[in-house]
């Protein structure tokens, strides 16, 4: 039986990926953010997940306004990176897990989550940065299933809906006959607004991290507009953490976490949780 071994929430600001690519993790002002990943890497070696379901928001790479799904999931054999406007990156290909994808898709649609199903999907930096943080040498030992939550064109799905999507993903994984060891990743946040410095709200971010651990339902009571007012427009990327927490339901242990602000113009955060029963 497939099971979820843990959940990771993480920031994904592009500066993080560039720093890893340049192997400058020790030289940047936000080095403590990278140091906090050392226990995460130890945990990965011990727990050996073989699939990462990566919940993130596309940043205008794979999806544009001609067709903007609220929730989308990959069902491809592989996912490639692409130019997001900064210049053609070194080509990278990430292995998919199409059988598990289709199992999750069937389960989600039966549970009334009407997903957009993508047989091709360009992999946005939001997903790739999370994998780079987990596997900094770019050697990714897990297959990947990207799940995209619209954060581009409002109206965006509510916090409660994203949490429930995570719960439904958790349920789908638990009913998969293969014996995958699944890591759930929520990549986004925390407080920030694109192109604007000074939208970091550290007290709210710290409260959010505490709630993710102890009381995620409390976070689902915020309206999207309230989250924007508290945490900036891209504070809505918090939805990816909520979906992650929905998939890793029940009491959890925090393996490690860190809050470091600023990273670029964002409240930088990471939290790795594992089901308390593990």
């Amino acid at each position, binding site marked *: 039986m497939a099971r979820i071994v843990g959940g990771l929430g993480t920031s994904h600001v592009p500066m993080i990926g560039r720093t890893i690519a340049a192997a400058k993790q020790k030289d940047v002002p936000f080095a403590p953010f990278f140091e906090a990943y050392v226990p995460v890497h130890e945990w990965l070696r011990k727990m050996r997940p073989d699939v990462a379901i990566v919940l993130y928001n596309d*940043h*205008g*790479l794979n999806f*544009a*306004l*001609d067709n903007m799904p609220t929730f989308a999931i990959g069902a491809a054999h592989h996912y490639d990176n*692409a*130019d*997001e*406007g*900064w*210049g*053609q990156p070194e080509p990278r290909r990430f292995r998919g897990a199409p059988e598990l994808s289709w199992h999750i898709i069937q389960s989600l649609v039966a549970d009334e989550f009407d997903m957009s199903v993508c047989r091709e999907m360009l992999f946005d930096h939001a997903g790739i940065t999370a994998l780079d943080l987990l596997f900094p040498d770019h050697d990714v030992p897990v297959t990947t299933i990207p799940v995209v939550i619209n*954060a*581009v*064109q*409002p*109206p965006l799905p509510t916090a409660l809906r994203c949490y429930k999507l995570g719960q439904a993903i958790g349920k789908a994984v638990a009913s998969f006959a293969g014996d995958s060891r699944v890591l759930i990743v929520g990549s986004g946040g925390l407080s920030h*607004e*694109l*192109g604007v410095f000074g939208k970091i709200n550290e007290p709210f971010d710290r409260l959010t991290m505490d709630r993710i651990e102890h009381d995620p339902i409390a976070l689902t009571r915020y309206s*999207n*507009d309230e989250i*924007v007012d508290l945490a*900036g*427009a*891209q*504070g*809505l990327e918090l939805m990816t953490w909520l979906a992650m927490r929905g998939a890793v339901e029940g009491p959890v242990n925090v393996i490690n976490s860190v809050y470091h602000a600023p990273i670029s113009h964002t409240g930088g955060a990471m939290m790795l949780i594992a089901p308390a029963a593990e």
Partner: protein
Amino acid sequence: MTKPQPGKFNLDAALGGYALNKMCHSLNRAENRVAFASDERGYCARYGLGEEEIAAVVARDKPRLFELGGNMYFLAKLDRVKKVEEI
């Protein structure tokens, strides 16, 4: 027109801005960034932008671009053109 606030639904922004955002999205591709940089006005016109939008793009007038329905995720692509040229 009500002033759009990033991250919140705004009907005027939702009704407008399509061509502007589509043009910005096209700047993901290197060859399009070159074409844009060599003739910003002509490039915008080919995407169907109006004169007001073109003027705001050329001036990189962010507040105005927001008012015209520009979406921050796509306007970010416009920022990157200049950065690419600087490299």
